[in-house]
């Protein structure tokens, strides 16, 4: 077991983790943050996307120990029913949510894009979302939702 310190959704944590323990397992099993989903376990689907030190990563490909000293944002740290993040609002209103399993990862990829680039082009949106697979909605509404959220952010 090794001791790591993390800030997750603005709360500091000290955890004892196994050296081979993945970050997704630490988040889900130790912190109960179940909004982070595992779809493939090999960094292909992006359902486990979180934001680590300002960058999106697949939490199934990162060891918990590697995240020592990092600042993390999971879906639980983004918006709430009283004040949803513009990305979340746009996803609901546009109809970009169907089965919803890819949604937390999608929201985090979109949020991270807009945090860095408030005026993304369609190409930039496509690239930013290209690490998140979706099997239901066909991406069309997802990309549109990100665009709408970006436009709302500008106002």
């Amino acid at each position, binding site marked *: 077991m*090794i001791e790591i310190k993390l800030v997750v959704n603005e709360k500091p944590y000290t955890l004892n983790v196994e*050296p*081979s323990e*993945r970050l997704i397992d630490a988040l889900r099993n130790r912190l109960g943050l179940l909004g982070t989903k595992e779809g493939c*376990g*090999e*960094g*292909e689907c*992006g359902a486990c*996307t979180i934001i680590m030190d300002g*960058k*999106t*990563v*697949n939490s*199934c*490909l*990162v*060891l918990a*120990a*590697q995240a*020592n*000293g990092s600042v993390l944002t999971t879906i639980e740290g983004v918006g709430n029913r009283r004040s949803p993040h513009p990305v979340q609002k746009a996803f609901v209103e546009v109809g970009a949510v169907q089965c919803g399993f890819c949604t937390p990862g999608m929201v985090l*990829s979109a949020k991270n894009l807009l945090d860095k680039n408030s005026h993304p082009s369609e190409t930039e949106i496509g*690239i*930013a979302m*290209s*690490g*998140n*697979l979706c099997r239901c909605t066909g991406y069309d509404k997802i990309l549109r939702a990100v665009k709408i959220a970006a436009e709302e952010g500008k106002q």
Partner: protein
Amino acid sequence: MKYFQPQSVDEALEIAHTSEATFLAGGTDLVLHMRTGKVQPLGLIDLGKISVLREIKEIEGSLEIGSMATFAELGKSELVFRKAHALWQACQTMGSPQIRNQATIGGNLGNCSPAADGLPALLALGAEVCLSTKAGNEILPLESLLSRTPLLEQGALIRGFHIPMNGQKSGFAKLGRRKALAIARLSVAVSVQLNGSRTDNVRVALGAVGRRAFLSEALGQELSGQELNNELLEKGVIEVQRIVREALGTRASAPYKRVAVAGVFREALTSIIPEGGQ
């Protein structure tokens, strides 16, 4: 399994010397391989906290890239864009944004998959690798390192890469099954020094055509010292197809790849030829 998180290169080398542990770079391959049981390290030396290994900078006419620079960092670097364009291009299409944020160029070499996205570009650009062990440093051309088996001795750390900045122009193209999250089925990187419109010191490297990425010195020589134009391009196409045919032999993928490499080579080279095609 033990887990180390050294703060300096010296500390990392010391641990490697005494522990038989494996270096952990970004981990996007190693974490996966540990999970599937393909790799069972005795310990891990996480290089993620050694900030000096992440640097990308210009020193005395050479582009210095630390082994822990991520694909995302390289793909956003103005310096890499200008001085090592093929590498910059390779960084745009590798994996996905999430993987590019985590995967490192040193890890790409350490893992050394046949389809490693960064290696053809580094080969074409004439990169030298800087290795360190507790005993000392070694600097050698990447192609020399890639001919070694095993690639690295126990305890050897990839510190980074020197890329000469001799005004070469470079280009990269990759053929994948889809437009993101695609493993390279073929990749080609080319670099050329231009004297007016004459080529000099042409270097062509191929990925996913064999066990490891490789540099074709013969093809480079063949294309050097000539006018850079479509005729040269077509000559290169025929040669590169021959190289792929020889390299792949009777492998199942051969009939397709030896034809398709034409398009990939053409794309890599045309991204260098100035507008208008000369």
